[in-house]
């Protein structure tokens, strides 16, 4: 028998029981849609969380701080030590302090960070207006959007605006024996940092050093490649310092999402098992109904393999209809929700995120798997139909 005719016979069989076929395929469709929806939700969430921090530069960088130690200090000497470790490409210090920021009549509380231009690059500082200070000996400052808003300076006036800051320098940052002191610095804004959290200001490191700062708050150590991060981490930690790296954080996030996905996929798997039982039931009933028919098809000279294929193709067709519809529903639901979030976010002025995301390869994979599962489900009824004796089948009522 020609394969096209086998397919035609299976199709006619399904078509002659429209309701049953539609219900069974819907079962498959719902479970596949469920799986697609859950996986794209998990992948979407994961992408959102890692996108925020995934710049390749950041993966090579280790953050070093003294932690709670009272004896350790992070000064030019230690920075030099870090630079001399194997595979380190650079080490950059940073100092932070509390500050009162004044622009014209308004003043706000915030944090001031002393860091040189190379640190900004390591940190991947993003500027929304103006530019970063290139000259580390200038009195240029970067402020964030939060500070700009609270100071009430418009985008037009902000670049080149003169501000003054009262910096509270803690004793730990100064030479031993010095007490906390407050200094006033006049600065000129050269750029706005794309950040809306609490107000802060970045200034070149010399502003602090000129005021007697010798101990830094923390440092960034950049490796030649991300493969050396773990090794440098061990070395630096053996000196007593605390380290954290974004790579670790990303690893943890990915680990969390891997578990999250397994949980979601198991839910989907349960749905698929239920759909398979439904399909198995339909195929078995279909076989019982068609026992006589199978008998006389054999009496007319139909080969066993042909009977086998008619039933197998039937289950595969149900699987195909169901999984294609399921993928469409799953993708559609995710798409609609994405669009709603987008509409909601742009309406309220927030940043829109794509909450549901699934790569095309995975969609194809899910289609393939569900087809294979429906094929497996159809195997037993098909074998039974192929093996049944023609005369016994024709006597079957």
């Amino acid at each position, binding site marked *: 028998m020609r394969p096209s005719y086998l397919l035609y016979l299976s199709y*006619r069989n399904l078509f002659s029981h429209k309701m049953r076929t539609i219900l069974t395929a819907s079962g498959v469709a719902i479970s596949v849609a469920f799986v697609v929806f859950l996986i794209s939700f998990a992948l979407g969430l994961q992408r959102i969380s890692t996108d925020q921090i995934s710049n390749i530069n950041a993966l090579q960088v280790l953050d070093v701080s003294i932690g709670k130690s009272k004896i350790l200090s992070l000064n030019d000497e230690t920075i030099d030590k870090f630079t001399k470790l194997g595979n380190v490409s650079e080490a950059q210090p940073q100092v932070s302090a509390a500050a009162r920021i004044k622009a014209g009549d308004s003043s706000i509380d915030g944090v001031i960070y002393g860091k040189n231009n190379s640190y900004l690059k390591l940190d991947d500082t993003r500027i929304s207006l103006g530019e970063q200070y290139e000259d580390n000996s200038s009195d240029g400052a970067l402020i964030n959007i939060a500070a700009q808003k609270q100071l009430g300076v418009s985008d037009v006036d902000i670049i080149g605006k003169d501000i003054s800051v009262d910096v509270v320098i803690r004793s730990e940052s100064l030479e031993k024996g010095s007490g906390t002191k407050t200094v006033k610095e006049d600065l000129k804004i050269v750029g706005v940092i794309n950040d809306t959290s609490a107000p802060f200001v970045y200034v070149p490191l010399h502003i602090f050093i000129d005021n007697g700062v010798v101990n830094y708050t923390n440092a960034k150590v950049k490796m030649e490649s991300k493969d050396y991060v773990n090794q440098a981490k061990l070395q630096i930690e053996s000196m007593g310092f605390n380290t954290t790296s974004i790579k670790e954080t990303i690893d943890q996030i990915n680990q969390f999402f891997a578990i999250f996905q397994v949980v979601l996929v198991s839910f989907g798997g349960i749905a698929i098992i239920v759909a398979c039982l439904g399909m198995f039931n339909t195929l078995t009933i279909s076989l019982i109904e068609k026992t006589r028919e199978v008998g006389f098809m054999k009496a007319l*000279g139909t080969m066993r393999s042909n009977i086998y294929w008619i039933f197998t193709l039937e289950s595969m067709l149900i699987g195909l209809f169901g999984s294609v519809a399921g993928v469409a529903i799953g993708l559609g639901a995710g798409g609609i929700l994405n669009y709603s979030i987008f509409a909601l976010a742009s309406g309220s002025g927030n940043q829109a995120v794509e909450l549901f995301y699934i790569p095309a390869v995975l969609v194809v994979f899910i289609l393939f798997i569900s087809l294979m599962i429906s094929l497996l489900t159809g195997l037993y009824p098909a074998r039974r139909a192929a093996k049944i004796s023609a005369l016994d089948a024709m006597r079957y009522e």
Partner: protein
Amino acid sequence: MGISSGPPIIGIQNINKAFQVGKNQVDVLKGVDLNIMPGEFVILFGQSGCGKSTLLNTIIGLERPNSGDIIIRGRKLYDLGEDARAKVRQDRFGIVHQQANWIKSLNVVENVAYPLMISGYSRRAAIKRAERTLELLKLAEFSRYTPTELSGGQQQKVSICRAIINNPWIIVADEPTGNLDTVSADEVMGIFKTINEQARRTILMVSHNPEYEKYATKVIYMKDGIIEKIVNRKDVKVDEDQYPSDLLAMARGEVL
């Protein structure tokens, strides 16, 4: 016994068949010997349970005998495997049952075309020939119907169409008129007679209606699993070359 010349088309050699019913063994066929010659119209008479249907099923390769063999044109049928025997049914036999059986999801013409489809014909060629066959028995108007929408007589005529579409050597019919009224039954018997006389196809029919004796060239009486007697009503001498190779051509003098 046989008067016809030449080798038999079907040789039935010492067939024994027993069924196990509970703890008892029931002998259904007890050493049946019979030759069916080309061109014969053979009717098997006998009461229910005499083993005639079992014999028929054995002949078409569905019921393996306990001993003995069926020889079809010189080949032992039960030396073949299940699929090879299916192939013999496909190519050599046209089969009509007492109750017409249908593939319910297919319409009349598709059901008639089915034997051609299983032998690998293209759908178009098979449907075309099926339509011609239906025309031959004046059933063309029903070709798009669902088979079960037709009357019993019409259904049985459609199943004759299905039995002859693959141009078989032998038409095997198991009480084809058993469920029909007299008028339909006569019509169906007439069709078998035409197929036998005009296309010289061999017909083997099971019946328990003695009135049909007149159609037969050979009548076989069976009782309790043995052949009681054989009556040759007419000598059949067939020179197969004289008759159309395609039995559908019988009524029109054309070969499809």
